[in-house]
């Protein structure tokens, strides 16, 4: 079964004449880690809103096509039902946090589901330990740094045990180091928990070596969709700016030095170079 299934989806916000999404076809399987990127206004946030039913249940407009999440039709299912399967994290964690302590914040959604107290406690403990939030569990969200707040927002979504996690620019307000920590944590969720993840981000250089699939959108359409190493060397990927290691790879290729697959991080480029140099040295010793 496809975890996410979109067929010929077109959506136009009420009051606009230009569609925000145009004939989107997309299938996502269990355990995939998908990075969606593209210029502002390309439709990537709109796509996220479809996955948990915010469109069409909160944002009105003209919607056509078929949208299924875990086989369930998004159009026919209320958002509180969809929230059990699809967890959503936004740019600004402050809008998502409102309780007196981190622990209560994480428990809140579970209380709403009407789960027994014992189960709630168990899940809260599990999430606090997985996310490493022990030292801040009794703090109020406003006492936390932006990076910690975003972790708490993710924790409270994870406690609901969704099958799919959708994150819309979660690092937009964080400094580089906190961003890196958060993105590593998201990658770990995918690796260790097999969580299916859809992540919208501009920060390609931090993510290329972590995701399993890269989608680039422009003007409401998907213009590229495939493995990061295939998509990133496509000419059309230039509209999102390619990382510097890719630039080095392409320049070397022009000089006849070809490494085959492009390096997705500085470490990968360095390894490629070291093994090439090692091979040359072994060759010259033999010769």
């Amino acid at each position, binding site marked *: 079964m496809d975890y996410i299934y979109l067929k010929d989806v077109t959506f136009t916000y009420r009051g606009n004449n230009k569609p925000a999404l145009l004939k989107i076809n997309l299938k996502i399987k269990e355990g995939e880690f998908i990075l969606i990127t593209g210029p502002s206004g390309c439709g990537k946030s709109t796509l996220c809103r479809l996955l948990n039913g915010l469109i069409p249940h909160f944002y009105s407009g003209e919607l056509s096509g078929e949208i299924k999440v875990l086989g369930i039709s998004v159009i026919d299912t209320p958002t509180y039902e969809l929230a059990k399967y699809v967890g959503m994290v936004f740019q600004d964690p402050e809008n998502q946090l409102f309780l007196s302590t981190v622990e209560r914040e994480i428990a809140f959604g579970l209380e709403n589901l009407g789960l027994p107290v014992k189960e709630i406690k168990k899940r809260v403990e599990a999430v606090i330990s997985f996310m490493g939030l022990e030292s801040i569990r009794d703090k109020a969200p406003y006492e936390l740094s932006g990076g910690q707040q975003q972790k708490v927002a993710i924790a409270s979504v994870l406690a609901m045990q969704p099958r799919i996690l959708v994150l819309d620019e979660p690092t937009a307000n964080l400094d580089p180091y906190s961003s890196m920590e958060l993105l590593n944590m998201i990658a770990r969720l995918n690796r260790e928990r097999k969580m299916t993840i859809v992540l919208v981000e501009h920060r390609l250089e931090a993510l290329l070596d972590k995701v399993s699939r890269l989608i680039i959108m422009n003007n409401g359409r998907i213009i590229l969709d495939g493995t990061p190493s295939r998509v990133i060397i496509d000419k059309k990927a230039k509209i999102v700016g390619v990382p510097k290691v890719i630039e080095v790879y392409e320049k070397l290729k022009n000089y006849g030095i070809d490494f085959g697959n492009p390096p997705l991080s500085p470490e990968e480029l360095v390894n490629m*170079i070291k093994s090439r140099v090692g091979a040359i040295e072994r060759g*010259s010793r033999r010769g």
Partner: protein
Amino acid sequence: MQLSEVVVEVKDLFFSYNSQFVLKGINLEIRKGEMIAILGENGAGKTTLIKHFNGLLKPSKGFVKVFGLDTRKVSVAQLARKVGLVFQNPDHQLFAETVEKEIEFALRNFGFEEEVIKRRVDWALNLMGLAEYRDRSPFTLSVGERKRLAIASVLCYDPELLIFDEPTAGQDYLQKERIAELLNLLKTRGKTVIIVTHDVEFVVTRFERVIIMSSGQIIGDGSTREILTNLNILSKARLLPPQIAKCAWLLSDLNIPKDLIYPEELVEKLKDLISGGHE
């Protein structure tokens, strides 16, 4: 070579909020025509420092002189004509009914003539790609667009010193390129430009001087090459090195110099390393 005039002079600057020091002994000299990036993690004191450059904050100890004027002795209004500061959050400075009126506001305040105002407004709107929005309310624009409007409303009165707090945050690649072009234009017009940012990759190829702050102090001040290849300073400020610097550092055991910052430089060295081995 004769050095250009000093635009900003900061001497033993301390600043405290609620008896806690946020700036602890800053010394700094900025000259006309320089392009400077100030980097550091959240809470390092970057924004507090630049708010001293237009007199919005006054030193608790030490002094700040801007165009020779001691900021303790002049008002924000007196400095405003020569110093333009664009805040990180555009909503802290936008308030007019339409985009056009927003840009006109400062020009009217400074008493420019109608004809000049009209010309300047058109220029700034076009430059920031906002011409189609001139009659819209600023609050119907996206965050990225509001940010460019905030920049336009400072550009229009042509200050000598321009300070941008996080200009590239929330901007996509193409808009970042547009901001980079704007900075270039300002440079060719002899302006002094200071930006506060986290965006190491944006800074590395475009700025000549980098200042790194951590816990209210300057822990690095020098050429971009010198500072952004100093992994020691970067890690103290919880910054990540630019990709090329990181590659060079990891390749130093193959005799690649550690201070590379441009893709072209690394490519040259790698060409020698790899094809040199062939021949």
